[in-house]
């Protein structure tokens, strides 16, 4: 989450909420260039509307990172695939 410490950034020119929201996910994904990244950060750390949106966005991104895992049934699936492939002439492992 964005912390209260982050919120105490000095005042600086910033985006309006609409522009910040449009760039919010790219900001959280780390896909913005340094200028836009600084502007969105400055906005969300000062804006009482956008600050919780940014925090909530980060929570969703973190939650999805937690479910990037290997399927539990990989061995079973692999055995089934290899069986079918070998019937078609595949000789690998």
């Amino acid at each position, binding site marked *: *989450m964005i912390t209260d410490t982050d919120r105490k950034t000095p005042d600086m020119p910033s985006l309006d909420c609409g522009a910040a929201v449009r760039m919010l996910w790219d900001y959280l994904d780390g896909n913005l260039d340094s200028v836009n990244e600084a502007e969105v950060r400055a906005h969300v750390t000062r804006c009482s509307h956008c600050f*919780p949106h940014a925090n*909530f966005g980060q929570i969703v991104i973190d939650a999805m990172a937690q479910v*990037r895992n290997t399927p539990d049934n990989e061995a*079973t699936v692999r055995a089934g695939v290899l069986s079918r492939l070998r019937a078609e002439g595949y*000789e*690998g492992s």
Partner: protein
Amino acid sequence: MEIPVDKHVAFHDLALRWLPDVTRFAHSLTRNESDAEDLVQETYLRAWRHWDSFRVGSEARAWLFTIARNAWRKRAPRDARLVAVEDDTLQALADEHFPLGAPNDVLQRLSDADLRPAIHQAIAALPEAFREVVELVELQELPYAEAAAVLEIPVGTVRSRLFRARRLLQTSLLEYARDAGLAPVHAEKESSQ
């Protein structure tokens, strides 16, 4: 990666290495373990049969996803699979009113909670057009352009679907928070944008 000359070795090194990813993608399409296993088998069978058409040096994982998706589309009746979605522009989506409904203490509780079951359930409940974008971009970490190629849609559509999918996931997580007692039932009235 050095490309093996032998077809069998090449298939092992370039195609079978992505089996866990293809399995997860198949599961996201079928939402059923048994159907997913069948789809993975079919995908690899097709890939093996058409291996000579695979351009070595291109992205094998995206190629396998495309095969899996095409096989699934052939297998499942379109009307049963797809819920029509409107592909709004990113700007229109960003301009939409989106009630957040989560004050900071609720967000903190959500941040501290184990959200894996909730996010699994929320992703599974997404309409297919959004779910497959989440699967490819968020879970498989494909670049937007590769996801767009697999899904045969413009990159801008990938971005707008991901934007809407993430908002749907946020809405689901708020419902989870209320069900789990992490947020008051009236929380949706406390904050909006």
